Each structure stands twice: as C-alpha cells, then as structure tokens.
C-alpha cells in the first residue's frame, strides 16, 4: 500500500476541509514525508484519521484507557459553530499492487447537551481500473478488501511512537504477548488453527466415549488427561488475567505519574524515580540472565565439589607411576611364569639363588595384574584431563558468582536510592501529592505480587504439560493393548494423532518464522546501529518464550547492557523484520509511520535510519517535533534524495490546526540548528 493523498474534513483539530499529499506522481522515488509540528498540533491525529478511514477505528493502541468521550473525532469548534449535525470525514487515495483505490468514511457529530454523539454516516470504496473506469465495492465487502491489503491485526506495528517502541525489548509478560501476537498474526494460519481446534473437539468427544468403555485402565488414564487439560486451561486463563492486571496497573501508574507531575516541587524527584525504576528493571534482567548462565554451569560446578578427591587419587597414581609400579617394569604374568617354572628368562635356576628369588617375590608383591594397571592408567589419564579443567571452571564459576553478587549489590543500592526518593516524594508538603504517591506505591507492590504469581503459574503450567506428555505416552501404549480391532479406539487414535500432527506443523511454522524474523531483524539492526554498537552487538534472537534478546560478539546475551537508543533501534529492526515478512520478503509495501522518531537517538543512529529506512520501506512518514527534526536531519534527508513532501502543522487563532505544505528547500530555512537549543 502506498498512500497518495488524504482529505480530512472537520476531523479532530482539523477544521473544514484540508488535504495532505504523501506522494507526488512526479517524484515516484521520493518516498519520505515529514509532518512537522509541536506537540498537540495533531500529528497523531493524522494517523488516527488513516486508521479511522481504513478500519473504522477510533481508538489507537497507544490510547490505553483514555475515556471514549476524549476520543471524539468530530471537530469541536465546528460543532459549536453549527446548530445541526457536523459531518466528519476522511478520504484516502492509495495504490496497492498496481491498483488505485479511493476510500471514504464519514460520521455525523451531534451535540446532546454536554455530550457529543457520533453516528456512522458513510463508508465507500472505489477501485480505479487500469482503463480508467471506477468500480464501487459493495459495502459488505469493503472490510475484506481492506484487510487483504493491510491486515488489521498487524497494523499497530506500522505506527509507533519512537520513544515508547523500545518497550518491545523489555522482558515482561505483556511484551512477550505482544511479540507473540505479532508473529502469530503474521503467520496467517487461521485455517490451520481452526483445524487444530476442530480435530481437538473430535478427539475429545471420542476420548469421552472411550472413557465410558469397559477398559478400566484406559478410562482412568483418559480421566487423568482430561483433568490435566482442564487445569492447564484454567492456568492459561489465569496467566491472561494476570497479564491484563499487570497492564492495567502499569497504565494506572502512568496516570498517577501524570497527576503527580502537576506538583512542580516534586517533578525532578519523579523524573529521578522513573530513571531509577528503569535502571532497576535493567539490572534485574541482567541478574536473571546471570542466574540462567549459572544454571548452565551447575554440571561443571558440581564436579568442583569432588576436586580434592580427584586430586588425591590422581596424585596417588602419579606417585605409583613415578616409582615404576604402574605400569610395572616387569609384567606380573612374566614373574608368575618364572616362579612356576623356577627358571629365569636367562635360563638360570632361580631357586638356587635365594637373593634373586626373594627379589622376584618382592616384584610379585609390587606388581598388579594387567587389567588393574590398565584401569589405573586410564583413570590417571581421565583425571588428568578433569584436573586441567578445574582451574578454568573454578575461575568461571567464581567470575559468575562475583558478577551476580555485584548485580545484586547494585540492585540493593538502587532500591535504597528508590526508597529515599520515594520517601522525599511521600513527605511532600502537599497532602494530595502524598496520597497519590501512596496509591502509586500500592500499585507497584501489587505488580510485584502479580508478576510472582505469573511466574509460579507459568512453572506449574510447564509441569502440567510434562505430565500430560507422560500420560499420553501411557495412553498410547494402553490403547494399543486394547487393540486396533476396536473401532472406537482406532477412531480415537486417528483423531489424536492428527491433532498432534497439526500441532507439530504449527510449531514448525512458529519456529521457522521466529528464526526468519530473528535473521531479518539482525540484518536491519546491523545496518541501523552506530559504529560502536556494531562492534559489539551481533544477533537478535526471538527466544522460545517470545522475548527478544541480543547477543554480543561472544554469542552471550547482552540485552540488559544496551542503551535506550540501542533498544529503540533494536525494536525498529524487529518491526522492520515483521513488516518485511508481511510483505512476502520483498520491499515493505506498508507505510511506516514514526511518531517522535529521533528523540532518544544519537546523531549516528538518526543518520542510519535516514539512510536505510527509505530503501527498505515503500513509504516512510515521519511525525516530528522541532527538537528532533533539525537542520542537520533535514540536510541528511535532502541528500538521500528520498525526501518528497514536507508539511507543517500550524495553530490557528481558534485553537485548530492547518496543514501547510512547504517546499523541502525552504525547510532548511524554517528548521533550527542543534546549537539553537
């Protein structure tokens, strides 16, 4: 999809009819549009207009729990100036796979006392054929056509707030869910998922029938499996509920923070607390990773417990080796033959020489049999190898323990600072601020408990899954015993095997897509990172649990150590990889919208985004403020030869916004330099 033009009428801040052209036919390769404006001027409103026109949606994912009455689309001043209803509409012109489309959606806004009512008014889609004819798509089919162009389930990935997008790299249940949903939506395996559930129903029904059969063991196993599945379902519901509760608590904390910011005297403390909390999260993540590494060391570390015994045994054999007892200078079987024959190998009669005889007896005592000698030598070799590793392993374990100890002590320090800052906020002279802060603390404590509950539920779920696997193996054996001659049993086996096969195929797909997205994200990451980051950061991995990880040059997890800017670049790389996959691996035929794109980024990162995004996305629309889009960035964009359109959102005397197109050459005169700030 390439957006060409949007016409808005009485939509949010935009009073009257205004238009914005994202693409000029005369400059087809200039695929970057910059919409420039201060906060609150309506940059996000433009994206809202697109989402409303395409999908009829009034709420964006970033709106959180903003009440519906604050999300009205109709322009309020137009409504106040009119006695009757006001028509609010958005019209979009776009092309997709060589076809042109015009989509229009309108609502009517009405004042009802203090309330504003909005009613759907019009939804029309026209397709312009190559011979210039215009076809009208039946209303009932419009959503299907639009979904086939841009699936509504993945749309949220293509508009993002640059400063908040780094959340994708935070290892929380909600993020894992978000990434998992993005990947699942992208898989587009709806039919497969329906098939799995339908075969599951059949299988369950057959198992119920079988459990009523006369085979006692079979019935018992089926009952246990059914109970296990029920418990798993309950736990999954509980995990979903917990994730929702955590999300809501976080939203409530953000809301409380905004309320608290109204108290100027504690504003700096709030900022400090936010930073400390972020730092704490990073350190906790680092501690988790260190723990995981230590977990992997458990095997090696356990050998260290027996190191004194190993060394004692090794040294004992070594001493015997030194003395020539192992291997003995003369083989035991040879000595025994001499004593039996009473003849030395030189032909002498050994019994005639008592000194020589006693010498031979001495040898016999000192030598052991060949098998024992070989075993001792093998043991010596093995222990020698093991002993060599002790040093390295001990160093590694000690290093990791020390690292973990340091992280824990940093966490303790942060916690102390946090407590200190929170106390200062809590003792604010303003009673209302103190109350708000107490409320926040309760929420924070609640999140800790919820997260612990979620971790426990997850562990329990894993245990139940293992138990189910074990029971299913037993069931399979039992069903074979009952015999394939029993038709009911045959049907049940077939349904269950088919369900397993479909689940396997689904898992294969998920694994493959995770791998592909990881590879693709890594490629983008390496292009977008600055020199320093490229030197150390190597690979983005989508973990089994759908969390994102970045590996350093030693293939070690490094996510906890990267900066906020690097996290933003990592999230953008992940989104670009999703978009590429959604575009069937070619150029991303989805417009990428970035709100506050450069806020946290270093100049080198900005430079890389400007150089690379226009080459892999079919269209890049930047919604930027004056503090992040300056003459430097504009110069880079101009040099890239991809910048096509430039719009400024200007305030009007009545508090609305007008969209004003500017020539990109004049942008440099309008924008400011970094030094001006």
């Amino acid at each position, binding site marked *: 999809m390439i957006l060409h033009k949007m016409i808005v009428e009485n939509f949010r801040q935009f009073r009257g009819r205004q238009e914005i052209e994202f693409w000029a036919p005369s400059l087809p390769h200039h695929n970057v549009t910059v919409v420039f404006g201060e906060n609150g001027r309506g940059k996000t409103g433009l994206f809202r207009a697109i989402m409303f026109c395409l999908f009829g949606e009034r709420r964006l994912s970033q709106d959180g729990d903003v009440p519906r009455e604050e999300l009205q689309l109709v322009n309020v001043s137009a409504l106040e100036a009119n006695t009757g209803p006001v028509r609010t509409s958005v019209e979009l012109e776009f092309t997709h796979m060589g076809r042109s489309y015009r989509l229009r959606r309108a609502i009517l806004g009405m004042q009802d006392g203090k309330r504003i009512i909005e009613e759907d008014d019009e939804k029309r889609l026209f397709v312009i054929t190559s011979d210039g004819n215009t076809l009208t798509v039946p209303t009932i089919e419009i959503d299907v056509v639009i979904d086939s162009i841009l699936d509504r389930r993945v749309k949220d990935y293509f508009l993002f707030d640059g400063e908040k997008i780094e959340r994708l790299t935070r290892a929380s249940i909600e993020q894992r869910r978000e990434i998992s949903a993005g990947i699942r939506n*992208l*898989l*587009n*395996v*709806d*039919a*497969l998922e*329906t*098939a799995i*559930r*339908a*075969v599951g*129903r*059949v299988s369950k*029904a*057959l198992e119920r029938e079988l459990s009523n059969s006369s085979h006692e063991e079979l019935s018992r196993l089926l009952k246990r499996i059914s109970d296990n599945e029920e418990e798993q379902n309950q736990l999954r519901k509980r995990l979903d509920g917990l994730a929702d509760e955590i999300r809501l608590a976080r939203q409530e904390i953000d809301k409380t923070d905004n309320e608290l910011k109204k108290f100027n005297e504690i504003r700096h403390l709030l900022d400090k607390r936010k930073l400390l909390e972020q730092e704490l999260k990073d350190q906790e993540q680092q501690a988790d990773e260190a723990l995981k590494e230590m977990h992997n060391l458990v095997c090696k570390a356990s050998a260290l417990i027996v190191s004194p015994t190993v060394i004692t045994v090794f040294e004992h054999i070594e001493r015997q080796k030194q003395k020539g007892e192992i291997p003995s200078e003369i083989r035991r079987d040879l000595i025994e033959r001499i004593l039996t024959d009473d003849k030395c190998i030189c032909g002498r009669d050994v019994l005639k020489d008592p000194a020589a005889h006693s010498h031979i007896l001495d040898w016999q005592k000192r030598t052991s049999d060949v098998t024992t000698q070989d075993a001792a030598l093998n043991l010596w070799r093995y222990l020698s190898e093991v002993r060599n590793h002790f040093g390295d392993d001990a160093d590694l374990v000690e290093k990791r323990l020390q690292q973990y100890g340091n992280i824990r002590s940093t966490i303790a320090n942060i916690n102390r600072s946090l407590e200190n800052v929170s106390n200062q906020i809590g003792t604010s002279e303003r009673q209302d601020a103190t109350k708000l802060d107490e409320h926040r603390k309760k929420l924070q404590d609640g999140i800790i408990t919820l997260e612990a509950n979620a971790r426990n539920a997850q562990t329990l779920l894993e245990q139940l899954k293992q138990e189910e696997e074990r029971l299913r193996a037993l069931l399979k054996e039992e069903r074979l015993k009952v015999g*394939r*001659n029993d*038709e009911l049993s*045959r*049907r049940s086996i*077939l*349904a269950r*095997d*088919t369900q397993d*096969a*479909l689940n396997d*195929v689904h898992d*294969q*797909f998920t694994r*493959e*897509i995770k*791998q*592909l997205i990881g590879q693709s994200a890594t490629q983008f990451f390496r292009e977008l990172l600055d020199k320093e980051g490229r030197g150390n950061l190597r690979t983005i991995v989508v973990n089994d649990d759908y969390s994102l990880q970045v590996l350093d040059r030693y293939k070690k997890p490094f996510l906890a150590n990267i900066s906020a800017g690097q996290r933003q670049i990592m999230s953008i790389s992940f989104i670009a990889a999703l978009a590429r*996959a*959604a575009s*069937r*691996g070619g150029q991303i035929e989805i417009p990428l919208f970035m709100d506050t794109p450069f806020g946290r980024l270093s100049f080198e990162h900005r430079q890389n985004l400007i150089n690379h995004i226009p080459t892999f996305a079919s269209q890049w629309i930047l919604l930027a403020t004056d503090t992040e889009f300056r003459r430097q960035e504009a110069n880079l964009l101009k040099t890239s030869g991809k910048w096509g359109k430039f719009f400024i959102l200007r305030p009007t005397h009545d508090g609305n916004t007008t969209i004003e197109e500017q020539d990109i050459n004049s942008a440099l005169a309008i924008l400011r330099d970094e030094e001006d700030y």
Partner: protein
Amino acid sequence: MNDLGKTLLPDVNALIIEKLNTYPADVRELAIQAIRLSEAYPETAVAEQLQTIVRKLAKQQGGNGL
C-alpha cells in the same frame, strides 16, 4: 535456508499440506480435510463433518486388517 519465504505467500495452506507429507496416509488425509473445511466453515461445523470422515477412515483401517 528454511522455507519461510514461501509460508508468507498467500497460499500458506499448500505449504502446510506439503509439511504433512511425512505423516501416515490416514493422519495426512484427515489433517488435509480438516484444513480444507476450516477454510470455509467455522470450528463447530468442521468438527461435525470430521466425525464422519474419521469414522470412514477408521473403517478403512479395519478393512485393511490394521
């Protein structure tokens, strides 16, 4: 190289069916029918139609002396 490039093509179900090649004939047959039905019908309707197919396939199995 995995075959993900292909999975993202519109006919993703063709690839799923290809992946089912490694399974026994009756399992494959039932899985394919389930996917085809799922393209057109909701879950409950698919499950109902599958009951008949399962019965037929299980009978055939019995007839083959399995």
